[in-house]
């Protein structure tokens, strides 16, 4: 076989792989959305779940998904960004920095079930929060934290060094340079990173089953952080495994589709402004 035939075969093979990946995704999407979209109705999306009879909705779960996500980001963003800024900018190459870096990587590698256990004992039991939105979002924040640190660090590092030098050479303090130049310039990639974190958090179930519980408040929306907070993905788990409502299968399909749509929408919602900022920053180039 000549090297040129090999090359041609390899090229075909690589294109085929690309195609397989796309087809695989398309199959997932068609399967999930195809099965689930017909289940979606206004009533399903906003309605309260029915425990025994068919025809309930997932309104509170949808609300809780976002509420818990919001709270967990509220806890983890400041710390995550803070630590990320430290690593990207202040950290000297020394043992302390290495130590922090290893900690972040270690935290990132913790299996979510371990976070679940930790949150369950720390927040649910010891701190007496019971199964609650607060307990769930605090634990989820631990999961988000290392990813946010990394995202921040990477985003800041990808800002050209020249901005940093230019600002300091004009006599700014480091904090001024970070706040006025680096963070704004890093914003688009920061936002993309946060979207990924959010997508992951929206889909998380192992952690929340143990900390936020599998039931919802009777009120919608209920902003009480101490009420139980079943989310869409834990609801999906619950419905497919133990629900007795006759339409459990349909609810599962609908929830899966809704969950996917939410993640998609979230990506779009953040991607668009982040593209716009990017465009503005780069002067339309």
């Amino acid at each position, binding site marked *: 076989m000549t090297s040129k035939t090999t090359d041609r075969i390899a090229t075909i093979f690589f294109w085929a792989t690309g195609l397989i990946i796309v087809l695989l995704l398309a199959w997932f999407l068609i399967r999930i959305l195809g099965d689930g979209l017909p289940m979606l109705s206004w009533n399903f999306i906003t309605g309260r779940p029915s425990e025994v009879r068919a025809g309930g909705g997932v309104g509170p779960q949808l609300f809780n998904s976002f509420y818990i996500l919001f709270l967990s980001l509220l806890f983890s963003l400041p710390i995550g960004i803070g630590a990320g800024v430290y690593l990207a900018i202040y950290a000297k190459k020394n043992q302390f920095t290495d130590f922090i870096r290893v900690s972040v990587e*270690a935290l990132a*590698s913790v299996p979510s079930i371990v976070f679940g*256990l930790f949150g369950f004992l720390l927040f649910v039991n010891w701190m007496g929060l019971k199964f609650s939105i607060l307990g769930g979002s605090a634990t989820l924040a631990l999961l988000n934290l290392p990813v946010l640190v990394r995202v921040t660090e990477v985003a800041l590092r990808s800002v050209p060094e020249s901005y940093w030098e230019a600002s300091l050479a004009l006599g700014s303090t480091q904090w001024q340079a970070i706040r006025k130049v680096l963070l704004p310039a890093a914003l688009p990639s920061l936002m993309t990173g946060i979207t990924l974190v959010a997508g992951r958090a929206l*889909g998380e*179930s192992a952690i929340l089953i143990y900390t936020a519980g599998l039931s919802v408040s009777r009120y919608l929306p209920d902003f009480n952080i101490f009420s139980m907070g079943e989310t869409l993905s834990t609801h999906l788990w619950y419905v497919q495994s133990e629900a007795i409502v006759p339409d459990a299968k349909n609810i599962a399909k609908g929830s899966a589709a809704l969950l996917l749509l939410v993640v998609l929408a979230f990506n779009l919602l953040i991607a668009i402004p982040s593209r716009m900022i990017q465009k503005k920053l780069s002067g339309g180039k």
Partner: protein
Amino acid sequence: MSSYADQLTDSLEQARKEPSKGNRWTRGQHRNDRIMRIIFVGSAILVSVIIFSIIAFVGWQGVKTFSAVSPSEFFFSTDWTPSKDKFGAFPFLYSTMLLTLLSVVMSLPLALAGAVFMAKIAPSWVREILRPATDLFVGIPSVVYGLIGLTVIVPFLAKFNEGFGYGILPAAIILAIMIMPTILSISEDAIRSLPGRLEEASLALGATRWQTIWRVLLPAARPGILTGVILGMGRAIGETMAVFMVIGNSPQMPKSLLSSTTVLTTAVVKDMGNTHYGSTWNNALFLMALVLLLISLLLIIVIRIVAKRSELK
């Protein structure tokens, strides 16, 4: 001319008149700078505190198991019968390893080929489609993967195994898809971040694209690819819900790839809710969580070694 000189003296005079204002502002900025620095360092320290409290906590709770169960029983016995005080966790460890390896092996060809395709072959518009597509794989919640495993893969495999489709194989298929984007995107970055001059050098010597990829790019990107594989492994080891739905959950050694078994994560979820805090059984579950944690940390160390080696080169 004169107006310019006037301006200059004006501004100088002004500076002399209000030196304190500028100073106060500068002092304030310096203070802010110091405060923010403390905040950043504090945040960084907090991250360390969190991971150490998790390790300490899980470790402390898990190690208590050894007051009732010998380490050799826990790690090497295959008999897990808590009602008879038998806590042999070997089947879980074994299945975890097997499942992880299998899912990486299944995932790797697709992920690597996809990475090469996206980094070097696909025209940019195809890449623009593929990149968000692989991100979307990450966005699909694990429960949904599990659901598909349960409703599609398990029944399908059942056709070939006397009606039984649960076990490591369906779990590995699901995991292979779940970790594919991780391996793919990290490998792609690794390949893409290779200096373009390597590729140029090879092509300029009359190598075909395939020869360049196979002989130069992939070997040069090996550390990055390895990192991707290890991170993918980490994900596979830690995945819980999707695996739980398809693996069968029997506390026994798998007799084949289609035989009900349990991995560490699912062993923990299955019983954590209903064992009493402080009981040996419960402690054993924490010990499993600790083992999971240690395996994950070990993988991190491996990554760092790999990274360091490639740095030295």
